[in-house]
């Protein structure tokens, strides 16, 4: 009996060693490119080729300074932050209002409205690019941050509405009845009872919205040509080119561009995962 147990234990150990080695190799595979980039961003251009895999001899902070000013990443970061925050706030408000009407209120079109919004998840942004570009240039919305914010809000709405409607549906009926008896209007019920209770949902959807809009490239590239209005991914795309030779500054620029999302991810990875799974269930 004892023998069997020890054999089983051994077998278990070997298999778990194999699994852990495999997982560890994958970690290297995932982290190494990012670390390499980090190291290169602190090197000098000649160091990149003399000691490609070593640690930087001295931290060349100038790389970041140049990227920030000459590469115009400073302006771009500000634009990105502005666009993301405004989009976040507005899509949150509009989205949860619609979600409340769909998830909680009683009317015969609510199901269809939900389907209408969810259709937005299926439609690729590329398909509306040309008409939007034409329309927006007529209204002077190209080369303006609002021209980005409006479509960003629209494309954030399906996920927001889907997740928030789930939250509102899950709230106990008694809560609303009590509020109703106390003479709350429907607007008051929404803004001071339902909305504060759906905080977790708002947080989760907010993170998803932030991440996807922070990374969006195509729309921003098409709509914005004024250098002072470009968002971070666009500025990066123009600043960094494999054919120019100032490698270290470009690497610094890439680091600057992804750092905010890394920070957000480290702080809130659990909520981001929750948002992903909640949003994907419907597909």
């Amino acid at each position, binding site marked *: 009996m004892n023998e069997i147990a020890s054999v089983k234990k051994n077998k278990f150990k070997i298999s778990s060693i194999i699994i852990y080695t495999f997982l560890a190799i994958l970690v290297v595979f995932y982290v190494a490119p990012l670390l390499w980039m980090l190291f290169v961003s602190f090197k000098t251009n000649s160091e990149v080729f003399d000691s490609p895999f070593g640690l930087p001899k001295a931290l060349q902070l100038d790389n970041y300074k140049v990227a920030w000013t000459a590469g115009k990443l400073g302006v771009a970061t500000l634009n990105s932050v502005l666009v993301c925050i405004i989009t976040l706030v507005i899509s949150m408000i509009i989205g949860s209002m*619609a979600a409340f009407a769909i998830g909680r209120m009683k009317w015969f079109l609510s199901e269809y409205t939900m389907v209408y*919004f969810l259709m937005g998840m299926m439609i690729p942004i590329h398909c509306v690019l040309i008409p939007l570009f034409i329309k927006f240039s007529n209204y002077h919305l190209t080369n303006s941050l609002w021209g980005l914010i409006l479509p960003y809000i629209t494309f954030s709405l399906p996920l927001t509405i889907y997740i928030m409607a789930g939250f509102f549906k899950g709230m106990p009926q008694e809560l609303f009845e009590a509020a109703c008896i106390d003479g709350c209007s429907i607007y008051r019920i929404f803004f001071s009872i339902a909305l504060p209770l759906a905080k977790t949902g708002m947080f989760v959807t907010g993170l998803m919205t932030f991440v996807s809009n922070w*990374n969006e*490239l195509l729309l921003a590239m098409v709509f914005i040509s004024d250098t002072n209005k470009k968002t971070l991914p666009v500025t*990066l795309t123009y600043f960094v080119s*494999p054919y120019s030779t100032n490698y270290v500054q470009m690497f610094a620029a890439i680091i600057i561009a992804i750092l905010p999302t890394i920070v957000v991810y480290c702080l809130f990875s659990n909520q981001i995962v929750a948002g992903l799974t909640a949003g994907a269930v419907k597909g």
Partner: protein
Amino acid sequence: MDKILRDKKAICFFIAPGIILFTLILLIPICQTFYYSFCDWDVLSSPEFVGFANFKKLFTKDKTMMIALKNSIFFMLFSAVSQQFFGLLLAVLLTNVKRGRNIFKNIYYLPCVLSSAALGLLWSFMFNQKMGFNQILDVFGISGPMWLMDTKGFIILPMWVISFVAMWQYTGQTMMLYMAQISGISESLYEASYIDGAGKFQSFKCITLPLIKPMVATTLSLNAIGSLKFFDLVYNMTAGGPNHRTDVLATHLYFEGFQYFKYGYASAIGIVLLVLCLTVTIIIKKGIKIDDYEM
């Protein structure tokens, strides 16, 4: 109570901003794209209805379109297969691992939240002629290929490289979704199977696989549609080059529409893309029958 929840005015108030925005920015433009795709229209002229001429040109005369279509479909198949395989493998391995599960999980998922524009640039340096991988190969005395410039073969090397990077970036998402699904399976099912003498592999085949079937449909359509829409990585790694050999549908649309300003023609590409997305979704939805099990 009921009366308050049926308040028409309030419903309109809540729903109106979303509906208006959606109609203006999504529904009307989609219809316009549809119309424009039947028009001959560039930046200098006004739209002129020409019927199916754009589509005819797309599928018979446009060589780049053929390349883009081929690349997009290759890209979709490669992403779907590789991400399904590795995503599921990682999810199963990680649910069986106790220590360090969260750390592993978070590391594998990290690239998904980063900008593919930035990561595309990073990988274009990794596969640069003089840097990255070729520096590693140099250590072993091998001179590496021109990863992103090679043009030999039916599916050229740069497409494999881009697909590989896409796999690197997005496998974490599939893994995450599978993990969520697997963790919803009740532990007692597994216990019962072990008592009945099933091994780990058997319980995986007979319990895990059937129960994650709904997630297969979801992740598969996410993989497929995500890779059909792909723009950032391709644009930043090769910009469609060399000589449009790595164009995918999205980059082809971008170049036709916003470098050559052929609006009508680009709209037709957009419609092809949309039809492709819808077809794939429908095939997946119809192809994977979901049986209801009790979890």
